[in-house]
């Protein structure tokens, strides 16, 4: 009796260890995918760059002051041209995003009453959920004319008081770096504000209380205690947002224009690096031309820049954490007699400022009010921008909305009255299906391995691998999606053409899978990390083995937040434009795709083509498409939000 029981339990435990091994190796294999992506990215880009620099000398690339790939004679590839535009547009964006983001982040962390915070925070953060093509469209069609017709004349008048000649010379091109920079800056506000808010919230209350106990006002505590403590988070936020801004493609391409001329005036059209890649991909040059290769050379510069910025962000944070924050320390004189009588500090203070504490603390406290005023203005600016943008698209587009608009195919590429968006809707659905079929299993599996198995390997190398993967993941998530678009072109459209048949749904879906994979891994890891360890221990306590704990205890507990991560990834993929443009989504197809090996349209790409059309009816159709896309995204984000808040209620139990 007992022996048979023994045997059976031994048998089942060896069976289990087989499952254990299989699951470990299988998940481990999935966790290797991101590394493969990096290798492919570096290898393929390196290869194209190698071919490019066979034809163009590296010296010319760095020193030439023209960028003219289209000329047969006298082709020039001076990266300076694109670099200067990128720096100018990014500089404008940073001037907006950093101060506003920091102020709002501080306000949300320290000042906002909780009732106001629950409203303000989602409003601000919903900016990140809006597809950048929508914002680019808004910048070009609405903001740019307003700046040119309303704001510029005022500025001219003002400057005219001092220098008429200069004032007269000011004019705003329809495509311009200023508008692109402004809008990129505004949508980057939530990136800064949420990182800063978290950084400040993470500071323990002990520090606030310690400062308050010395008689500090809230603002003094903020300035002298909280901000220095949160400095690493703030520096990290600034560096991270810089790298995001550098890679921002659609707004730069739509609002900034395509002129590749060395210019320093942001009132004129200027093409950033990412905008160049997009525009050049659109021209679909032959895959072996120098123009095609130049895309990769620019892509490599963009990739390396974001890589350097992200790494710099990590290192700065590490250094700041340890290093002495430079305080102007006066040299303390070691008194000969330490116990000489010192004047009473209270008499000193009263002597110094006759009116004593009361008045001075009123003056000091007024800074709190000033700061709150500034914060509210910033919040208002961002919210007004959001409302203006959504309202504008709705007003322009709602007349076009009809059942027929949603369900009909375009009659022809020309007849804009009869355009319908059935083809892009179905195309987007196909793309999502393909992307999710690949990205969800790989992303969740890899996240499980990295979070549940890897930390338990205690050998030195495993710990290093773990740290390395953490950095890799952060970097992968920060790679601009246009760069993934290039990877997609080279890998899926070209190398794997035998499988994917070129510029098809399969290629597009796989590329989107690569774009969202890091998001899924990060979301899975943080969801698993939030599962309390006591739950795991309870699993082991009843005799479960590790794979059983992972699949039957940890994963179900983490499921709601993993699912909300998946939905957010879905909305990112749905709004992704630049990678699909690079892959070669069509401006027009006359059929609904029936399998993954066909050409395709996609909603955001459709918006891009229609937005840049000169025909007003087509533009209205673009606005209507925006309303449709925004509606879907809003729905998805609300679902994700509900899931998250449901989970946080659970975890509070």
């Amino acid at each position, binding site marked *: 009796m007992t022996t048979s029981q023994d045997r059976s339990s031994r048998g089942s435990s060896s069976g289990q260890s087989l499952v254990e091994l299989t699951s470990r190796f299988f998940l481990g294999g999935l966790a290797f995918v991101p590394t493969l992506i990096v290798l492919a990215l570096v290898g393929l880009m390196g290869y194209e760059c190698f071919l490019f620099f066979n034809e163009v000398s590296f010296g010319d690339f760095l020193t030439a002051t023209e960028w003219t790939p289209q000329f047969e004679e006298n082709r020039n590839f001076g990266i300076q041209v694109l670099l200067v535009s990128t720096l100018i547009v990014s500089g404008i964006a940073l001037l907006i995003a950093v101060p506003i983001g920091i102020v709002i982040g501080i306000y949300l962390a320290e000042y906002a009453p909780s009732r106001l915070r629950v409203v303000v925070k989602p409003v601000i953060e919903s900016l990140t959920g809006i597809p950048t093509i929508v914002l680019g469209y808004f910048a070009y069609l609405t903001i740019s004319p307003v700046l040119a017709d309303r704001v510029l004349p005022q500025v001219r008048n003002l400057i005219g008081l001092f220098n008429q000649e200069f004032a007269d010379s000011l004019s705003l091109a329809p495509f311009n770096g200023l508008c692109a920079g402004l809008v990129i800056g505004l949508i980057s506000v939530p990136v800064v504000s949420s990182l800063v808010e978290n950084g400040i919230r993470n500071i323990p209350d002990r520090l606030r209380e310690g400062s308050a106990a010395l008689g500090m006002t809230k603002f003094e505590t903020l300035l002298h205690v909280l901000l220095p403590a949160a*400095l690493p988070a703030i520096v990290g936020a600034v560096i991270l947002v810089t790298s995001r801004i550098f890679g921002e493609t659609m707004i730069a391409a739509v609002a900034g224009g395509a002129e590749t001329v060395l210019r320093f005036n942001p009132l004129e059209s200027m093409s950033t690096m990412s905008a160049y890649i997009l525009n050049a991909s659109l021209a679909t040059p032959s895959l072996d031309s120098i123009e095609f290769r130049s895309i990769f050379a620019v892509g490599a510069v963009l990739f390396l820049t974001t890589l350097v910025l992200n790494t710099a962000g990590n290192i700065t944070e590490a250094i700041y954490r340890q290093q002495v*924050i430079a*305080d102007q320390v006066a040299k303390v004189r070691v008194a000969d007699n330490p116990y000489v009588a010192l004047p009473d500090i209270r008499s000193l203070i009263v002597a*110094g400022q006759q009116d004593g504490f009361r008045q001075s603390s009123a003056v000091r406290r007024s800074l709190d009010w000033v700061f709150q005023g500034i914060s509210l203005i910033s919040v208002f600016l961002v919210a007004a921008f959001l409302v203006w943008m959504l309202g504008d698209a709705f007003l322009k587009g709602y007349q076009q909305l009809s059942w027929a608009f949603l369900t009909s195919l375009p009659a022809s590429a020309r007849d804009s009255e009869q355009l319908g968006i059935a083809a892009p809707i179905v195309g987007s659905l196909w793309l999502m299906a393909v992307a999710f079929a690949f990205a969800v299993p790989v992303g969740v599996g890899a996240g499980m391995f990295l979070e549940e198995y890897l930390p338990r390997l205690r050998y030195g190398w495993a710990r290093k691998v773990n740290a390395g993967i953490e950095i890799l993941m952060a970097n992968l998530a920060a790679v601009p999606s246009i760069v993934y678009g290039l990877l997609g072109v080279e890998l899926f459209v070209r190398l794997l053409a035998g499988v994917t048949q070129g510029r098809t749904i399969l290629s597009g879906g796989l590329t989107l899978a690569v774009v969202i994979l890091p998001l899924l891994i990060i979301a899975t890891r943080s969801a698993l990390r939030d599962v309390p360890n006591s739950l795991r221990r309870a699993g082991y306590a009843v005799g479960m083995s590790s794979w059983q704990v992972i699949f039957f205890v940890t994963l179900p507990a983490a499921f709601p937040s993993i699912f909300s991560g998946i939905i957010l990834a879905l909305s990112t993929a749905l709004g992704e434009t630049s990678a699909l443009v690079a892959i070669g989504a069509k401006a027009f197809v006359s059929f609904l795709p029936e399998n993954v090996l066909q050409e395709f349209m996609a909603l955001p790409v459709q918006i891009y083509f229609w937005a840049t059309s000169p025909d007003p009816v087509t533009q209205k159709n673009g606005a209507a498409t925006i309303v449709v896309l925004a509606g879907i995204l809003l729905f998805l984000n609300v679902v994700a939000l509900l899931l998250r808040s449901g989970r946080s209620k659970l975890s509070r139990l």
Partner: protein
Amino acid sequence: MEVIQDQDTQVKAQVRNFSFFYGKNKAIKDVNLQVLDCKVTSMIGPSGCGKTTLLRCFNRMHDLYPGTHYEGEILLESQNLLALDPIEVRMRIGMVFQKPNPFPKSIFENIAYGLRIRGIKDKNVINERVERALRDAAIWDEVKDRLKDMAFNLSGGQQQRLCIARALATDPEILLFDEPTSALDPIATASIEELVINLKGKVTILIVTHNMQQAVRISDYTAFMYIGELVEFNRTDVIFNNAAQQRTREYVSGQFG
């Protein structure tokens, strides 16, 4: 409630018919208490009886969080400090917390910070004050060569003494201590107890402690609290040897709590 009279001391602060609420929860119930000038008064009682809560009323710490309110009065000399500007109150009443909480600044700046905000600009005065405070807190010898180091790099006991120095530097009228040694080892504890004893006669001290021996060693007066009420207040030797209330006797002899 019986009023303690000592010929040679004055009353520094007086708690009168005082109650405190966290939302609807009445955490301090109608307490009357005298804090005598330049003496050490300790507050003892079982966990959760409201010692920390009462202590933090003295410097209006609760004002940092919404939903709390006070009833009754706490007189600081002759003014009701509940009616004053909390920032002014905190300028006059310093506090040392249970866990050390140095600021993310250099050792020097941790102490100079409070002085600067009080409008002291003269570098020499600041330097002297910083040194004096560090000496008074018995940490000067350990840090005098590394004043520019981050305060976080100090040990826990050193950090706690730095926090004491930080509070001392501003010359508070009353110094509040909330279990300042509960996170420290016996040696660091002894040095902080010695420091408190040395401060007697210079500043009024109110200290919360769980350690009865500590209360006996350092305090002149002791208040025993139980579930939000002040059960008994008297000279420390009376409370520990000859308490009037049954519950006090049981508590100090270790029969409950």
